[in-house]
């Protein structure tokens, strides 16, 4: 990874974070309101995913016409295509946590800059959860 890649990544993180904070994704009550379709539904956040997909759907196709990215020799895109029980169970656990806390990973990290304790509690536990999965996964592969 070159200096260009690192700088690019910083700029992407910055713009992505602007998007999250401006959109309302860093306000857990808004996120819970968005998921609360059986209660007081606040559908406004649909425009966050909708807007980003609308743009990236087209830019993805345009960019992939190139032979390679600008600052890298090759593409580094996900190769897995199989829909597995692991995928579905993992996504379900994530969804429950998302509804319960109102934070997904990006907004949780960005909200650390409020310097209030709750985002720290969330992000700290999230990191522990990631490590726990790795421990569980290692154990499983040792057994099989």
């Amino acid at each position, binding site marked *: *990874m070159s200096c260009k890649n690192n700088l*690019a*990544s910083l*700029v*992407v*993180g*910055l*713009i*992505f974070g602007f*998007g*999250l*904070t*401006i959109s309302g994704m*860093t*306000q857990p009550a808004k996120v*819970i309101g968005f998921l609360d379709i*059986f209660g007081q539904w606040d559908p*406004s*956040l*649909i*425009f966050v*995913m*909708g807007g*980003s997909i*609308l*743009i*990236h759907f087209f830019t993805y196709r345009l*960019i*992939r016409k190139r032979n*390679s*990215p600008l*600052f*890298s020799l*090759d593409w580094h*895109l996900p190769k*897995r295509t199989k*829909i597995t029980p*692991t*995928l579905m*169970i*993992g*996504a*379900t*656990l*994530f*969804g429950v*946590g*998302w509804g*319960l806390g109102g934070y997904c*990973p*990006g907004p949780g990290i*960005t*909200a650390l800059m409020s310097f209030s*304790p*709750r985002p720290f509690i969330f992000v700290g*536990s999230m*990191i522990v*959860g*990631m490590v726990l999965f*790795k421990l569980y996964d290692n154990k499983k592969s040792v057994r099989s």
Partner: protein
Amino acid sequence: MYHEWINAGLGGILIGLSVSLMLLWNGRVTGISGIVNGVLTPQKGDTQWRVLFVVGLLLSGFIVGQFKNDAFADNVQSSNWTLVIAGLLVGFGTIMGGGCTSGHGVCGISRMSLRSLCATAFFMAAGILAVWIFKSMGVIQ
């Protein structure tokens, strides 16, 4: 009321733009859980860009927090232990499922990946059910 929709749309456009730049410049998918997970298992030459991405996120939060006073408004009434459980589930679940709202939801669906579409359907449905159940139990208010 309308400004919330405009903010959401504007934020969505910025997110769409940023993930497009990640693809154009570095040839990568912008998946936050994956980026963070890579920092936890550092591999030579594959850590700096991840850390700098997180620095970018924090920097943006700091900047927007200076002028948008509801940027991090937290009006959820729940115990800190509820938040611990939420964090554990989000961490465990995103690595198990190979992605979160950004990697599966934004990048994956834009790539028309069936795997990501399936994951997104599952975490959206689970999120909706969780809010419905935990709100009626009074765990979150």
